C-alpha cells in the first residue's frame, strides 16, 4: 500500500522513485512541487511566463536525473523543492529576456532626473561628477568582459541571461563580477573615495 507523501522518509522516497512504485511516487512529488511553486511564485509570474505545471514537469526531470546527488542532509522534499524553485526562476528569466541582446542590455541607459535637480543644482552636479569618475574606474580597471557583464547586470539583465550570451554560466559570471567589484573597491580606496562618501552624496 502506498504511503502518503508527507510520511515518506528520505530512503523511501529514493527507493520508490527508483522502483516499481515510481509512477505513484512521481505523482505525489509532482503535487508537492506544484503546491510549493504556487507559494514560491505568488505575485512573481505574469501571463507571458510558462505555467506552474511546466515548471513542475521540468523540475521533476532534473530531480529524477540527479537522485544520486541527494546527500540526505535534509528532507528529500526540501531538496526537491530547492531544485524546483531554481528551475522555475531560470525559466522565468529566460523567457522574459529571450529577445534582449547583451548589447541592448548594456546600452539601456537610466534617465532618472531627480526631483531636486533644479532645486539643488550643486548637489546634482556633484552626483554627476562622481558617476563620471566611477565610469572611468570601470573603463580603466575592468577587462572588456567584466565591463560588459557589469553594465548589462547593472541594467537589470539577470546573471543567467548575461552568462548565456557570454557562453559561460551563472556561477562563473558571479566570480567574474566578484573580481570586478574587488578591482573597483581597490581603485576607490586608491582614490580615497569611500562607498560611504559616495552614498552620502546620493542621500544615503
Amino acid at each position, binding site marked *: 500500500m502506498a504511503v502518503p507523501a*508527507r510520511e515518506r522518509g528520505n530512503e523511501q522516497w529514493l527507493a520508490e522513485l527508483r522502483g516499481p512504485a515510481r509512477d505513484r511516487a512521481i505523482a505525489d512529488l509532482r503535487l*508537492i512541487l506544484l*503546491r*510549493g*511553486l*504556487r*507559494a*514560491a*511564485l*505568488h505575485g*512573481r509570474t505574469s501571463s507571458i511566463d510558462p505555467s506552474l505545471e511546466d515548471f513542475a514537469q521540468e523540475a521533476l526531470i532534473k530531480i529524477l536525473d540527479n537522485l544520486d546527488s541527494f546527500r540526505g*542532509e*535534509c*528532507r528529500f*522534499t*526540501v*531538496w526537491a*523543492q*530547492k531544485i*524546483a*524553485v*531554481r528551475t*522555475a*526562476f531560470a525559466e522565468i*528569466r529566460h523567457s522574459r529576456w529571450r529577445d534582449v541582446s547583451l548589447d541592448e542590455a548594456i546600452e539601456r*541607459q*537610466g*534617465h*532618472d532626473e*531627480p526631483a531636486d535637480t533644479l532645486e539643488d543644482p550643486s548637489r546634482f552636479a556633484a*552626483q*554627476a561628477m562622481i*558617476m*563620471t569618475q*566611477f*565610469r572611468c574606474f570601470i573603463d580603466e580597471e575592468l577587462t572588456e568582459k567584466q565591463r560588459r557583464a*557589469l553594465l548589462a547586470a*547593472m*541594467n*537589470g539583465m*539577470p*546573471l*543567467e541571461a548575461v552568462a548565456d550570451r557570454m557562453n559561460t554560466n*551563472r*556561477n*562563473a559570471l*558571479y*566570480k567574474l563580477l*566578484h573580481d570586478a*567589484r*574587488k578591482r*573597483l*573597491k581597490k581603485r*576607490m580606496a586608491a582614490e580615497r573615495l569611500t*562607498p*560611504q562618501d*559616495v*552614498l552620502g552624496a*546620493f542621500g544615503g
Partner: protein
Amino acid sequence: MFDRDIFKALIGEIAETREVEIGCDECFEQLDRFVNMKLSGLDPGQALPLVQEHLEICGECRDEFEAFMAALRATEET
C-alpha cells in the same frame, strides 16, 4: 549616465565585497541546510556565513531563497 538607484545599489555591493566569496552554485548546494536551520529557529548566518554573505550580494540567489522559504512554509509545515 547611470540610473541613480542602480548606481547606489552597485556602490552598496562594492562596500559589501569581501576578498573571498562563494559563487551561486556553492550557495545553492548549501541552501537546503541554510533554510533548515532558519526554519528550526537557528541562526544560519553564524553556521554558514559565506552563504549569508552571498545572499546579501546576489539578488538572484536572494530571490530564489525567499521563494524557496515560501515554498517550504507551504509544504513542509502542514
